[in-house]
């Protein structure tokens, strides 16, 4: 694919003199672009190195398994559990919503279009268009706007709480899950549905039983990508969760989270202990995100979905 070569062929071509000025220019371009590629990835290693080199000092089982005591002491269990609670609840809200919407737009509105009545067809066409358009727009909305919205909409009802934060995060998960699910549902071969329909299934049960199972790996990829994205989000939680040195399960309790904790550390100033604790917390957060992302990429390979840096 492309004009890329195998490593050996690329190397071999470098061991002879260029035969023309243009071939020489080719090599210059190669070196130039390769240097740029290194420059692009360098910050990744720099940041991961920086975080790990500073953060591993404090990292031990106690740090993960005990709650914070003030900001400078104890572990970060409350933040870890809080993050998990937030994302778990957000997922439970967002997943059925998005998968349902995706099923409607791909299975009923699109595939089932031919048999339906005229105005239903028109309506469905618009539903697809609107759902996809709004999902794309939503994907571009800055995270701080979700925070502000959560503050006036969810906090107004629930106060700064687990549920307010989780619902705010759920909104942010919509575009990723919706679009990935749509994509993987569309990738399910038509023959599978037809086989099921031939056996007397209505569209409803076809969707559930056959298609969903075939698209499952793709849907899981989307869910994991969405989780990987929102678990690191701070801005939507700034005004919605409050903070807590414990990790209660009450929906209406204030709750801590990993990214918010890091933010608070960053605000605390520059004492050495705070700096180290911030980095240790960052290790845990990055670790979770990387594991989730790697699993998502791996799952996407299974179903031939292409995961791209930067989401949908």
């Amino acid at each position, binding site marked *: 694919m492309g004009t890329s070569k195998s*490593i050996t062929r690329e190397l071999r071509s470098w061991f002879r003199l260029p035969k023309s000025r243009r071939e020489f220019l080719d090599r210059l371009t190669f070196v130039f672009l390769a240097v740029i590629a290194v420059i692009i990835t360098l910050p990744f290693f720099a*940041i991961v190195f920086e975080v790990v080199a500073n953060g591993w000092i404090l990292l031990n089982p106690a740090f993960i398994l005990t709650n914070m005591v003030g900001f400078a002491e104890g572990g970060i269990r409350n933040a870890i559990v809080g993050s998990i609670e937030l994302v778990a609840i957000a997922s439970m809200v967002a997943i059925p919503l998005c998968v349902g919407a995706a099923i409607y737009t791909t299975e009923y509105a699109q595939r089932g279009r031919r048999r339906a009545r005229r105005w239903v067809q028109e309506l469905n066409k618009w539903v697809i268009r609107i759902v996809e358009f709004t999902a794309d727009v939503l994907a*571009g909305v*800055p995270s701080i706007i979700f925070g502000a919205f959560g503050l006036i909409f969810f906090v107004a009802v629930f106060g700064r709480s687990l549920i307010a934060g989780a619902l705010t995060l759920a909104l942010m998960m919509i575009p990723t899950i919706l679009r990935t699910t749509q994509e993987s549902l569309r990738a399910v071969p038509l023959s599978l549905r037809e086989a099921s329909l031939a056996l007397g299934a*209505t569209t409803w049960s076809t969707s559930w039983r056959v298609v969903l199972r075939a698209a499952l790996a793709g849907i899981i990829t989307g869910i994991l990508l969405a989780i990987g994205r929102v678990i*690191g989000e701070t801005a939507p939680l700034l005004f919605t969760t409050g903070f807590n040195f414990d990790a209660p399960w009450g929906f209406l309790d204030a709750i801590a989270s990993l990214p918010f904790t*890091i933010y608070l550390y960053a605000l605390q100033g520059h004492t050495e202990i705070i700096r180290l604790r911030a980095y240790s917390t960052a290790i845990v957060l990055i670790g979770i*995100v990387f594991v989730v992302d790697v699993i998502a990429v791996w799952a996407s390979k299974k179903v031939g979905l292409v995961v791209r840096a930067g989401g949908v």
Partner: protein
Amino acid sequence: MSQRNWRKILFGASTRDLVGRTLLLVFAIITSFVIVLIFSQVWARAFPAIIILGPELLGPVWDPTVTEQYGILVFIAGTLWVTGLSLLIAIPIGIAGSLFLAEYCPHRLKEPLRLILILMAGIPSIVYGLWALYTLVPFLRDLISPLYIPVWDSLTNSFVWISMEWYSGYGVLPAAIVLAIMLLPTIVAVSYDSMVMVPDTLREASYALGASRTETSIKVVLMTALPGVGAAVLLSLGRAVGETMAVLLVTGNNTTFPRWIFDQSYVLTSVIANQLGLAVGGYPLMESALFVVALVLLLLSMFFSITAKMVVSWGMRKQGLR
């Protein structure tokens, strides 16, 4: 009517189909409704300030406590500086990087590189912010403080050498750098995708005419992929304007107009992050003014998302692909 029949009507396949379908339609409507809800809520909260303050909102001074002036221009200027500089860094590098990945990178290295980009995009912005705060800012301070930098002096109409001893490390520069780092994976990935879509037959046609690898990748691949690259730029522009946490910690959050990259600044997202929590307590006008800022952000992000789509379809039409 036997009981059996009733059961069939109530729980039979076609009823289940109808109920299921309606439920799914409701889900679909809810997901679309979210953006409408967000927009209307933000609009409703911003409305009082727009009515009460009117053009004052575009004033240069933001001082909610003493003089109660709510000019958001300083934040717009800050955002322009930070995103402008970051894109200046990120766009050329990102396009070059995607060209490398698509056209030059040996096969075996492609997947690892792509994985690094995915992980890079996965690093939470607060961690980027932390790194910028603890590493980049001191680094820039120590790097630049000893320097003397030529600056155009409008009084004498000549360059004067300005000592950078006072440079704190905070401001437009570190924010733009960390933002550029965060944008690069997206720019590279999106442009790479559109370069990979360029059919090999076009590359072959170019080679068959005796074009070199460089000429082929720039004149054919890059040019054909240009709409996608344009979309990548617009998408990253939207991200840059909306990025909060990484920028928040390093711009210095100073409500003065930045004049150059070593000045401190205050961007649109930061003022919401810093002040909204307070304002919602009992400063209704300030809260409303902050929602004007939110409205500006929301409109900008929608504008970029939509133009990104339009650029792609415009480019394809121009090339005759559609």
